[in-house]
């Protein structure tokens, strides 16, 4: 314990001392073409005495048509959550490395990447290989990728292998995408992908899609249809009567006129999760049609994306009444699929259609004058995975004292009803933040949860933390959190990670050159 305290003190002294000489004359210049970034995250949970240290160091070098780079990751000790640690308590390795050649320009060119890479085809219905550190997802592929463009055509082809839950690369993915952007009124594209399992004689899972993106006057559209096949399942489940085992459709239509815009989206995902043979690597992430919220309580009961069993729509309207006032409203419904779906037939189940998620959100923003802004928001959702109904009003005020000083006050209230247990409770969050451009901010966030397990007996729980943000010199951003935080989900694009309750200190340092 004593040692822990010592090196906490040492780290803080080192970090803060940088400001003392950050403006001094430098004696060091990075070699031309070299880029460096480092992300350090350290936390110590006082309650359960769990220490987590995570660091990502990235080096990139580019010279003319050549690019190369690597990412060294050190997780010592690692997050105990098995979905993050992947079975390794201590981990330090070069997890990502690549070499690339890029020849030509937008008219005619080719690029070849060997090593680790990411790729997205269309809207991710067939392939989305990406990294998101906030939710600790990294399904990078190790292999070769080639991209070639000529006269409006773009061809991408790749072969690679992603890491599974125990950090082993077993299955092999082949994929290709061809798109045509040469016409003003329509863009076209097609994708093909195939996963070869590590087990001999096991059938490949193959997916293909076609997409069209028309544009006319103030309308824009996007439609993509995709299907999935697997000969083993076709023979075992459908006696070879079907040529596919799953399908998906996503479409969106946009209209904008002056200060008004509307977006409508529709989805139908039937047995369409594209995974490795062991089911631990997800190659695709289709548009989830869930509203992305910036407020804390609106993310408390999220609905995770299920690409095998969803049908639904979402509509969002934006209207700027004037330069001072704007309105946004959103409504969406996601349901599970009927018994006739591929999903239920392949899994031999019979479950009636139910509402997975129903959500409504309204937000009004008004600038009273140059120094005062108010945001009023209201959220309602019914969510099946936690089986809750949530009503959330929000009030946010910003006071701009002068050109560089701001105070922000956010009040969030949420009434929750658990539809399984009929339990009702409510949460309140109060956040006060002071921001001083360009280098400093401090926020105090308090959450109170009130429950009444028996009539007349009220139980309250309180979480509170203070967080400092500080710019160190010109290239580093430090964040320090001290206090306690309620458990909750971090969700991005329908993909969620559960964060357990926390009490302690958390330090983050981002550096880039």
């Amino acid at each position: 314990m004593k040692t822990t305290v010592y090196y906490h003190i040492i780290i803080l002294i080192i970090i803060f001392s940088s400001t003392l000489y950050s403006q001094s004359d430098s004696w060091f210049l990075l070699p031309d073409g070299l880029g460096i970034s480092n992300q350090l995250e350290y936390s110590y949970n006082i309650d359960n005495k769990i220490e987590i240290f995570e660091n990502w160091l990235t080096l990139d070098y580019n010279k003319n048509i050549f690019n190369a780079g690597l990412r060294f990751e050190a997780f010592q000790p690692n997050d105990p959550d098995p979905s993050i640690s992947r079975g390794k308590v201590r981990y330090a390795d070069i997890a990502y490395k690549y070499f690339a050649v890029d020849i030509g320009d937008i008219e005619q060119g080719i690029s070849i990447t060997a090593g680790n890479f990411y790729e997205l085809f269309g809207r991710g219905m067939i392939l989305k290989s990406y990294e998101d550190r906030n939710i600790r997802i990294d399904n990078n592929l190790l292999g070769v990728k080639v991209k070639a463009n000529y006269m409006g055509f773009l061809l991408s082809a790749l072969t690679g292998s992603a890491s599974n839950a125990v950090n082993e690369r077993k299955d092999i993915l082949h994929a290709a995408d061809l798109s045509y952007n040469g016409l003003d009124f329509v863009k076209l594209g097609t994708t093909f992908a195939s996963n070869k399992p590590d087990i001999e004689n096991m059938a490949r899972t193959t997916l293909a899609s076609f997409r069209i993106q028309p544009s006319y006057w103030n309308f824009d559209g996007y439609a993509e249809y995709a299907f999935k096949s697997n000969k083993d399942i076709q023979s075992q489940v459908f006696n070879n009567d079907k040529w596919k085992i799953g399908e998906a459709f996503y479409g969106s239509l946009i209209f904008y006129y002056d200060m008004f815009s509307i977006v409508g989206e529709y989805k139908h995902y039937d047995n369409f999760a594209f995974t490795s043979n062991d089911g631990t690597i997800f190659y695709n992430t289709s548009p989830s049609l869930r509203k992305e919220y910036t407020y804390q309580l609106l993310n408390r009961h999220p609905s995770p994306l299920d690409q095998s069993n969803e049908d639904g729509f979402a509509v969002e309207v934006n209207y700027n009444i004037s330069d001072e006032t704007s309105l946004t409203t959103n409504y969406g419904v996601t349901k599970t699929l009927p018994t006739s779906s591929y999903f239920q037939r392949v899994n031999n189940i019979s479950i009636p259609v139910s509402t997975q998620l129903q959500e409504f959100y309204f937000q009004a923003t008004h600038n009273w004058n140059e120094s005062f802004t108010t945001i009023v928001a209201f959220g309602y959702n019914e969510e099946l995975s936690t089986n809750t109904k949530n009503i959330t009003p929000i009030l946010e005020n910003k006071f701009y004292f002068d050109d560089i000083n701001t105070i922000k006050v956010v009040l969030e209230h949420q009434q929750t009803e658990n539809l399984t247990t009929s339990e009702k409770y409510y949460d309140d969050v109060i956040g006060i933040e002071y921001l001083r451009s360009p280098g400093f901010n401090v926020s105090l966030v308090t959450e109170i949860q009130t429950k009444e397990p028996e009539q007349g007996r009220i139980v309250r729980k309180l979480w509170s933390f203070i967080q400092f943000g500080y710019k160190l010199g010109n290239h580093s951003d430090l964040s320090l959190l001290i206090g306690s935080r309620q458990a909750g989900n971090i969700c991005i694009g329908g993909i969620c990670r559960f964060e357990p309750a926390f009490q302690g200190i958390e330090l983050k340092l981002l550096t880039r050159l």
Partner: protein
Amino acid sequence: MRLSLIIICIALFSTFISAQSEEDLKGRKAPNFKLTDLNGKFVELNKETGNGPILLSFWATWCKPCLEEMSEFNRIYSQYKDKGFKLLAISTDAEKTVAKVKPYIKSKGYDFPVLFDTNSDVARKYYAQQMPYTVMLDKNGNIVYSHLGYMKGDEIKVEKLLLELLEK
């Protein structure tokens, strides 16, 4: 003990990096990229450089500070675009929210180029781990400034730097 040494080394390294002033780091060539704009046309950074400073603004529709910052950048763009200044707003909206980019830009009446970086490939090249993230390039395509986050007043430094670059 080993862990504490690693932490101290990384902290020292970060401190050392943060101590470099902008002037010292002037000259790092901005990585080239090819992205599509709102109309589906390809835009290549190398073809945009050479006439004046370029501001790369990484943003997303779900990021509130990004939208505040964009309003300020629009004002700066309107004021200096005739003097050779270019603003490339790079949307990092992924498949979930990418459909909302064009309606948002149109409803706000912004006329600067907006590019799609749907899988954050360019954001990764520029180390834009969080949004908003701003990078200023001089007329030769060298990175002279980068800034993470937005709070009111950050645009003052950007405008000041822009004026210096326009005078050169």
